[in-house]
Each structure stands twice: as structure tokens, then as C-alpha cells.
């Protein structure tokens, strides 16, 4: 269980590095899209988690 | 043989495989669509039938899109010319093809029986008509279609669409294609449904298979009397892909059987196909739907192969200007384009096959009417 997970992570890392080196050089906007999309997804997710935290601290009905 | 010739030949083979995949997989979904109103007597049964192909129809339809894309990339001149030559028919085909995805998504989202009955008709039309056109297009191409090019490569049409639709040989080929799709769809329903759908699907599939056998044999006799096309001079396999000039082509009665008389061993292909169409229904009757499904796939493979052998190297002969007939050699892409597509296909086709099989594996098992009616995610 541990080994395949680690191998998978290592493989993903290698692919990501190769992608970053090659695409970042040849197509900076493509690279920006990948980074930007990940960032957008994470920030909007963080916003939702923040709301859960706000609700736990101050359990008012108002949204 | 030079490498360009090998590339051209290889892509013609891929084209053939795509046509086979289309017949088998899309044909199966279309067959289920055609049979929907007949194997399902009430709403629950019809939804069961739909959900049997529910998780996969979209992926299968992509074969159809991919087929179009592959023709465009590997044989741009063939794509540009054939789609325009059959304009009205292609537009009708398109209309029925685009009805299907919408019918799948929308049919079961509203409770009204009128709404659902209308979409069931949409399934019938969008299942049977495209399969008919698929077969009829093969029929028309074998007879030759009317077009020519100007010196710039602009294409001009010389024949009206009515002569493509009201063409007895094309109608025969179209009906055969519908019959094969009914067989394939019926076999799929038998694989994954229980009674009463199982028994009904069996009856229709058996008749579909035998009808296809009769039409296939009849078509063979017809072709032996029809005029085919033969390269007289030029048109070498390594030629620059220029459809405007560079070959001389003649119409010869029985010309499509030339390869078979030169190499009698090739007869094994059409005869094998005929055998599949006769034996397949017997296997279904013996309640072996999985084996029956594969035999149905065999019928499609043999049928497309037969057409390919008969016409080689022609893809779409011109009846009005035979010298500008499209062949594998003069309508293909550049060596660079074909190589490029080859490398990409070698990477992506195995990936596609592995995730498609995984998808089938995840969604395996019988589909039951009771589960469907209670599941809000189902079609």
C-alpha cells in the first residue's frame, strides 16, 4: 500500500517537473493556466472552509 | 515500398478499424435506441434498456467524432469532398445524431408520459436513421459519386442528393446496416437485462442477424454485375497527394471483384462474414449473449473488410470525372502529418482503451428495473 503510493507520488512529481521545465519555457501562458487553475480551485475551496470555521466560532443564522 | 506509402496504407487500415469500431459500438447503442419502443412496454422497462447503455453511450459516440477527426487529419481531401458531396444526407444524419445526446439527458428528467413518449420516438429515429445513412453512404461510394475539382482544388458537385437517397443499392446497404445494429443492440440488452426485456431483445436480434445475412448475400450478387473503378495509369502509391491530376481511371463492369479473382483466398472474408450472420442468431437462441455479441462484432469486421478489399485503393470514385477519383494515395495528408498523428495515436489509443475498460469494469453487472426507478441519477 505504502510503496505504490510513494511511487505514484514520485512519478507525478517527475511528470510535473518535466512539464514545468518544458511547457514553462515553450508556452508560458499554458503553464500559467495550470498554476492559475489550481490556485483558483484552492482559494475558492478555502473560502468554503473558512465559512465552516466562521460558523463554528459564531453560530449565527445570518449568511 | 517507400515509407510514405506504408504510412498511407497504415492510415487507411486505421480508417477501416474506425469504421468497424463505429459499426460495432455506436451501432450497438443505436440498435438499443431503435429497439427501445419495442423491448420496453412500460416506462420502467424502457429506462432499464436506456441505462444498460447509459454509462457508455457517450464514450461510444466519441468514436464517431474521433472517426470524423481522423478522416479530417489523415485524409483531408476525402473529408472535405465526401461531407460536401452528401450534403443533404449528412445534414439529416447530423440532426439525428444530435438528437441522441439530448434525448438521453432530458428524457427521464420530467415525469410527463407525453414528454417521455416524444423522446422515445427521438430514440427510434436517431437510432435507425444514422445507421441507415451509414450503410447507404457505403453503397453510394461503391457506385461512384458525381463531383469534380477546378485547377485550384475547388470542389464542384455534379449530382443531386435525391439520386443518393433513392438509389436501390444504397437502400440495400442501409437496411443491412440497420439490421446489424439491431442484432448488436439486442445482444447487448440480453447481456445486461432480465426478463421480459431479455426475451424480446432475443427475438429482434435473431431476426436482425438473419436479415443482414440475406441482404449481404444479395449485395454480393449485385456488386458482381455493377461497374467498378480501375486505375489505368498513374496514381502510384508514392504520388504527391494531389487529387486534381496524376491518374487515369476507367469504369469496368464487375471491376470491384478484380482483387477477389486475382487472389481467391480473399473470398474467406465475405464468406466468414456471412457465416457470422447466420450462426450469431443461433448462438443467441442458445442463450449465449456474450458469444453472440462477439460474433456480431465479427460480422461488422468482415463486412467492412469486404468493402475495403473490393475498392482498394479507391476511397471515393467520381462517376462524372473518374480521373479525379479519390484514392488512398491522392487524398491523404502529408508524410509529416501522418507521422505526427501516428505517434500521437500510439500514445493515446492504449490510454483510451485502458480507461474505457476500467469504466466498463466499474459499471459492470445486471441493470434491474427496480433499481433504476428509485435512482435519481439514472437516465
Amino acid at each position: 500500500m505504502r510503496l505504490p503510493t510513494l511511487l505514484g507520488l514520485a512519478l507525478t512529481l517527475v511528470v510535473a517537473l518535466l512539464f514545468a521545465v518544458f511547457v514553462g519555457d515553450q508556452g508560458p501562458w499554458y503553464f500559467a493556466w495550470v498554476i492559475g487553475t489550481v490556485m483558483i480551485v484552492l482559494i475558492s475551496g478555502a473560502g468554503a472552509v473558512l465559512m465552516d470555521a466562521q460558523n463554528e466560532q459564531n453560530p449565527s443564522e445570518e449568511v | 515500398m517507400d515509407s510514405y506509402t506504408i504510412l498511407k496504407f497504415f492510415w487507411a487500415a486505421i480508417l477501416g478499424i474506425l469504421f468497424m469500431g463505429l459499426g460495432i459500438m455506436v451501432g450497438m447503442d443505436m440498435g438499443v435506441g431503435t429497439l427501445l419502443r419495442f423491448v420496453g412496454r412500460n416506462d420502467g422497462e424502457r429506462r432499464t434498456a436506456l441505462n444498460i447503455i447509459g454509462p457508455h453511450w457517450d464514450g461510444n459516440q466519441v468514436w464517431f467524432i474521433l472517426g470524423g477527426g481522423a478522416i479530417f487529419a489523415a485524409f483531408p481531401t476525402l473529408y472535405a469532398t465526401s461531407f460536401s458531396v452528401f450534403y443533404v444526407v449528412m445534414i439529416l444524419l447530423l440532426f439525428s445524431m444530435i438528437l441522441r445526446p439530448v434525448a438521453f439527458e432530458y428524457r427521464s428528467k420530467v415525469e410527463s408520459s407525453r414528454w417521455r413518449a416524444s423522446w422515445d420516438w427521438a430514440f427510434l429515429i436517431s437510432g435507425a436513421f444514422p445507421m441507415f445513412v451509414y450503410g447507404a453512404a457505403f453503397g453510394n461510394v461503391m457506385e461512384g459519386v458525381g463531383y469534380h475539382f477546378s485547377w485550384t482544388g475547388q470542389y464542384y458537385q455534379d449530382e443531386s442528393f435525391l439520386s443518393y437517397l433513392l438509389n436501390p443499392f444504397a437502400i440495400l446497404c442501409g437496411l443491412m446496416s440497420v439490421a446489424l445494429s439491431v442484432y448488436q443492440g439486442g445482444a447487448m440488452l440480453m447481456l445486461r437485462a432480465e426478463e421480459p426485456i431479455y426475451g424480446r431483445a432475443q427475438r429482434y436480434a435473431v431476426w436482425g442477424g438473419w436479415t443482414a445475412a440475406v441482404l449481404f448475400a444479395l449485395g454480393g450478387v449485385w456488386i458482381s454485375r455493377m461497374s467498378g473503378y480501375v486505375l489505368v495509369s498513374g496514381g502510384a502509391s508514392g504520388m504527391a497527394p494531389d487529387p486534381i491530376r496524376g491518374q487515369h481511371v476507367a469504369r469496368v463492369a464487375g471491376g470491384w471483384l478484380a482483387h477477389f479473382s486475382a487472389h481467391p483466398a480473399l473470398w474467406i472474408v465475405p464468406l466468414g462474414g456471412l457465416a457470422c450472420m447466420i450462426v450469431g442468431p443461433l448462438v443467441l437462441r442458445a442463450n449465449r449473449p456474450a458469444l453472440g455479441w462477439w460474433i456480431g462484432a465479427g460480422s461488422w469486421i468482415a463486412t467492412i473488410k469486404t468493402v475495403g478489399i473490393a475498392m482498394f485503393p479507391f476511397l471515393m470514385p467520381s462517376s462524372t470525372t473518374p480521373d479525379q477519383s479519390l484514392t488512398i494515395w491522392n487524398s491523404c495528408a502529408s508524410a509529416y502529418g501522418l507521422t505526427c498523428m501516428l505517434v500521437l495515436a500510439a500514445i493515446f489509443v492504449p490510454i483510451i482503451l485502458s480507461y474505457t475498460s476500467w469504466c466498463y469494469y466499474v459499471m459492470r453487472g445486471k441493470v434491474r428495473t427496480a433499481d433504476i426507478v428509485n435512482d435519481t441519477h439514472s437516465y
Partner: protein
Amino acid sequence: MEPISSEVVDLSRLQFAVTALYHFMFVPLTLGLTFMLAAMETVYVVTGRKIYKDMAQFWGKLFGINFALGVATGITMEFEFGTNWSMYSRFFGDMFGTPLAIEGLMAFFMESTFVGLMFFGWDRLSKPAHLAVTYLVALGSNLSALWILVANASMNVPQGTHFDPETMRMQFDSIVQVIFNPDAQAKFVHTSVAGYVCASMLVMGISAFYILRGRHKAFAARSFRMAALFGIISTVAVITLGDVLGRLVYEHQPTKLAAMEGVWRTTKPPYEPWLAFAIPDDAKQENDLEIGIPFVLTPLVTHSFTAPITGMKELEDQAGPRISSGIAALTALKAWRASGSASDLAAFNAHKADMGYGFLAARHAPGQDVTAIPAGQLDTVVNETKPDILPNVFVTFWAFRIMVFLSLWFFAVFAFGSYVSLKNRLERNPLLLKLCLWSIPLPILATEFGWITAEAGRQPWTVFDLLPTYLSASTHSVGYMLFSLAGFALIYSIFIAAELYLMFKFARLGPEEHGAHARHDDPGHEDGLVVALGE
């Protein structure tokens, strides 16, 4: 050469424009909603709170309704290159077909296979596996857009191909140049992120509706916040990339840029005004009622204070010699096709770069044959062809402006929405909520106008500087075109009626009635990733 009828060309253009714009009503929502569903499901998997699963499923249902039409109308587009643009497809297909085929191989297959699992696999897959499937759907739909835009960019800024007189078409030279075409890069990011904006506005607007009605408050507030944050970053990105695209148009397509900005005469930097309002008159070749902001145009477009922007009148004059040279190219080419002599080929190669302008002159030549223009008529043909190099300025100018003004509006709505949502004061701002609701269709409208700017501005070419639209169409009869147009009008009207009916029905029903909570009574915690990792 048999003459081409302008009615058929116009009808073919109309049909392509209508079906493409119709297709693009559904595509941007698919591009954006898939990543939003992925974001929601990510939160579900990480926190284990069921409400995020309900969100992914409910918005997934709306996505499904929309996705079906996107797929269906996309098939039309693939058909139409062959059915209506035969000459274009033969001339450019060696290269152009490749990105379309790769789209099928790499993206569309992935998207379509996994979309089935995404809808049907909730109970059959583990949570991380289902999340991975959702990400693959999102990636697939955006890769699909990538390849289409790579293809489109090669029409606007052709790269990696050359004309071959032997085969009478553009031969494919380099896929790397085609993929990394700067226009393709900027266009892809601009379009994909515009899709994020469309999806954010839809989710935010419908959530605002629930909050206004006081329904599904916990559900709607979370959806609203995620959409608002998603939207504000995307809007900033879409504006940034719009600026990049403007620079590229300035460098590669001077006629399109001049039309977008309504520049008839070459500008005098740096005080040249950016026109916020004007009524360009194509016939008189000038603008009426100009209202401009001085000192903005030059730095905005050229990113400098000194570079001039060539005006459309000057561009027309510059085209004159290229048209005569193009006519010479085609005459030599035809002679070489018949004779095969080296001198004809040399004559062609000398004028090869202007061949497209020779094609452009065809419609003004006697019998539409540029190779047989009598010597005395050459100047007349050239002069008649010159105005043809410009697109329709009124359409290009206004389509561009509507898109730009709308994007500023989205920025305001998302910025305000994010702020109020982060403060948890949505209910105190009913006006904002109503504005969100009414703004739902606006991003889709903006993307449509974006396409009109890009494609109307590309005219009169299908392949910029190489093949005119006039010669690209299939030579059908008018009757064929009327038949297909009537068919599209009928089917597409039924589609949009059914789509809107279902969208409104499910949006009104809301998440609970749609069955999610009937099956998951406990809205609380499951074992999420966080809990699992903590053990």
C-alpha cells in the same frame, strides 16, 4: 473557373456563425462548472461534510443538462468544416485536421468517458477515486477547448505550414509551432478562464436567488462564496489575457486591430484617444459621434508611448501592390500546373508570399478568373479588391466594446460579492443578490461577443493572408443551404426551449427537493481525508 455565388457563401457564413455561437452558449459553462464541481468535491473529500457532496451533485445536475447540449451542438461544428467549407478543409486540412483529431484522441474521449462515471459512479467508487474522476472530466473539457483554440489560432496567425504547389494546399511542417503559437496560448487561457467566469456567475446568481427567498441558506451561502472567489480571480485573469491577446492582434493582424479600435488613419502617439463610444461608418470610412479618452489607446495596445497604430486607409493602400503580386503568383502557378516548366515555378515563387491576395481578387476578376485578366483591367480589379481587405468595422468595433464593458461589470459584481460573502452579510444586501441573479446571462453574452470580435475581425480571410472566406465555402445550391438553415432553426429552437425549461425547473426545485437530502438524512460529518490522516 466556374463562378461562385455570393449568396451561398453568405448563407454558409450565416449558418456557421449561428451554429458556432449557439454551441458556445453551452461550452463556457462546461469549462468552468467542471472545475467548480471539482473544487466543491475537494472540500467534501477533505472535510467530509455532506453538504459539499450535495453541492457537487446539485450543480452537477445543472452541468449535466448543459453538457448534453454542448456535446450535441459540438458535433455540428465538426461536420460543418466538411459539409460547408470544402475548399478550406482541402486547402488547410493537412494541418487543421490534426488538432481536431488530437482533440478527439486526448480530450473529448476522456471527458465523455469519465462524465458517465461522474454521474453514475457515486456509490461504486471510493471518495478519492470519484474526486479523481471529476478532475479528469474538468481537465478533459478544458483540453478539448485547448485543441479547438490551437486550431482556431492557426487560422488567425498561421504557423508551422507552407504552401505546396505540387499538392495545391498548405503542407504541415511543425506541430510544435502549431501548439505553441502565441495566439493559441493566449486564446486558450482567455477562453478557458472566461468559462470559469460564466460558471461562477451562474452558481452565484442561483445561490443569490435561494438566499433572497430564504431557502437552503447553508447550501446557498457556501456555493455563493465559492463562486464569488472563483469568479473574482477568473475575471482578473480574463482581463489580463485580453490585454495579451490585444498585443498579439496588434503584431499579427493589423486590419483586425484597426477595426476593433476604429482607427481609420494611422495614430499619432501618445495622445491618441481610446474610443469609449463611436459609430463607425464602413461606407464613408470614418467614425461619427466619437467620445474618446486621450492618452489611453497607444499604451493600451502597443505597451509603449511611441509606437503608431496603422490606420485602415493606410492598410488599404499598402495592400494594392500585394494584390497585383498575388495575381501574378496565381497566373504563374496555373501555368506551372500545366507546363511543369522551371521558369513558371520561379515566377510563382517570386510572388508566392502574396498568393492569398491574388485569391482575394478573384471575385472582382472577369469570370472570377484572376489568371485571365486583360492587361487594361488589372488596375480596376486591384482597386476594387483593396477595400475587401477590411473586416466589417461597425460589428468588430462594437462586439469588442460590449465584451470589454461587460468584463468591467463582472469585476465589480464579483469583487463586491466576495467581500460581502466573506463578511457573512449577504442577507443585508438584497440589491447585490438581485444584481447577481440578473447577471447570470451576461458572461455568456460577453463570450459570444468575444468570438464575434475574433472571427468577424479575421474577415475577409479564413486563413489569415492566405485563403479568403469567399473561396473557402462549398459550392452548394441556395436550396441546400435554406434546407439546412431551416433544419437548424427548428432543432436548435426545440433544444434551447427544453434546456431552459429544465434549467429553470431544477434551479427552482433546489438541492433538497432534488433528492440529495432524502437519501442522506444526516448532513454532518463523515470520515473525511482530514480525519483519516489524523489517525
